[in-house]
């Protein structure tokens, strides 16, 4: 289903999907982090509770030693030390009386806690021997539990994350289904319609070409001209639609294309359209410019730009075509595009103005071809005044 992802989704929709996926990932990671933190704290508390009993015994021993020292303080002033732990004593104003682990900030609100890989137990003796209200024991923490916790967290974290991503993928597919079905329906309809258009259009065009225009009177010649314009419009549309639906099957035949020659040829092709709208067409050429590209594809680009310039132009308007060393541009004097809509112009079926016929696929094709050949497309417009499309490389 994801095979034709790029051609089937609009950029706005892709953006929405990207936002959804980002949001979903952030949500998953946040949820996993919270769960991980809860698990970590739970395991830490469990480890501390295991240590608490043993440390309490040690603290009681130390209290007895302090008591003995208190009684004999006039004879002995050596602080009792123990190989199994470091300790410190504090008075009721939390001022340190003596310490074997130096000066450290102690959290007196806790009974047991861990900091910097050390476990601290705070014991309050029944009497203040030597003024000791708080006896603090410090033992190094055995980090085996920590590596076990990290291993479990990493394993389950990755597993749940992957599971959530798979779940997210199916959720996304579920959400996309109606949208995709609508686009596919439209595509299929166009494909079927185009196929049926081909033969009659070709018949009309070839028959018009066969008519000797010089033998006709003015009135009939005018009518034939109109039929010719109509047939060419349908033919253009047919080619666009074919390109769009069969783009992936077309093999590019790149060659050096003289752009001036091509532009002149296409202007000539569109001259009937321009005449019918009384448009003034001006081509300004700078240096001789060639582009290594598939001739059919660059013709498609030029045709679409010219077709738009004619279609959206006012009667007696103008079309200015400029060819430079590394660009060409088509500027019309038409109705322009609102600034907010410019970015949507490359989307398939997007149309700035619904009053003129068309499917809204022209610029989508231009964009497809441009991205294939790394050409840049730039649209500038002043609403109700002009639109300029520039292709540069």
């Amino acid at each position, binding site marked *: 289903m994801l095979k034709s992802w790029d051609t089937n989704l609009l950029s706005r929709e892709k953006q929405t999907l990207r936002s959804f996926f980002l949001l979903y990932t952030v949500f998953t990671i946040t949820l996993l982090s919270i769960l991980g933190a809860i698990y970590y704290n739970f395991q830490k508390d469990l480890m501390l509770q295991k240590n608490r009993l043993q440390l309490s015994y040690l603290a009681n021993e130390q209290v007895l030693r302090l008591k003995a020292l*208190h009684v004999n*303080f*006039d004879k002995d*002033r*050596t*602080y009792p030390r123990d190989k199994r732990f470091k300790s410190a004593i504090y*008075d*009721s*104003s939390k*001022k340190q*009386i*003596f310490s074997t682990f130096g000066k450290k900030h102690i959290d007196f609100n806790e009974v047991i806690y861990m900091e910097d890989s050390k476990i601290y137990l705070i014991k309050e003796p029944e*009497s*203040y*021997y*030597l*003024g*000791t*209200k708080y006896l603090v024991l410090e033992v190094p923490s055995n980090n085996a539990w920590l590596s076990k916790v990290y291993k479990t967290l990493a394993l389950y974290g990755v597993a749940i994350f992957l599971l959530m991503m798979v779940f997210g993928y199916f959720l996304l597919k579920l959400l996309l289904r109606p949208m995709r079905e609508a686009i596919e329906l439209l595509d299929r309809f166009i494909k079927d319609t185009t196929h049926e258009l081909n033969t009659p259009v070709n018949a009309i065009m070839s028959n018009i070409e066969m008519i000797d225009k010089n033998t006709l009177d003015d009135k009939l010649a005018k009518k034939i001209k109109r039929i010719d314009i109509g047939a060419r419009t349908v033919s253009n549309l047919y080619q666009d639609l074919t390109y769009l639906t069969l783009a992936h099957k077309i093999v590019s035949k790149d060659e050096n294309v003289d752009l001036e020659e091509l532009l002149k040829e296409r202007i000539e092709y569109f001259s009937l359209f321009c005449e019918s709208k009384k448009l003034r067409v001006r081509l300004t050429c700078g240096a001789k410019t060639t582009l290594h590209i598939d001739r059919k594809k660059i013709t498609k680009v030029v045709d679409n730009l010219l077709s738009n310039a004619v279609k959206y132009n006012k009667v007696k308007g103008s079309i200015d075509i400029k060819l430079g060393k590394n660009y060409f541009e088509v500027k019309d004097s038409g109705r322009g595009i609102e600034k907010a809509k410019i970015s949507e112009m490359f989307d398939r079926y997007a149309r700035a103005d619904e009053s003129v016929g068309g499917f809204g696929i022209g610029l989508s094709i231009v964009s497809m071809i441009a991205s294939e050949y790394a050409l840049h497309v730039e649209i500038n417009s002043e609403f109700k005044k002009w639109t300029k499309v520039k292709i540069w490389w």
Partner: protein
Amino acid sequence: MDKGKDMVVKFLIVALLQVAIFASIYETNCMECHKSMPVKIDKFFYRYLLKYSSEENLKSALTEYLKHPTKEKTILQAGLLNRFGIKKPTTLNDKELKEAVDEYWEIYKVFGKLK
């Protein structure tokens, strides 16, 4: 001979005066009585420490007791209390009392004495 006796008496008086002048309030007002008691003054300090822990609490409890001694406030054991009773209220003013208590704390405090 008499002259010699006079000299000795004079010398003793001067010496006593000197002691009186240079001796602290603690020494003249606390130690004077306590040194002749069977329980030494440091024992009282450690009993106070056992009950009050911090410098601030100890000093305020001791000051309060010296000013208004009662059976409820004393840290004396029952046996000693029955034998000696409680002391009379101090005659020192607040400033002198504070000075005496501060010196008492400085002499017997545990801070800086453990090794």
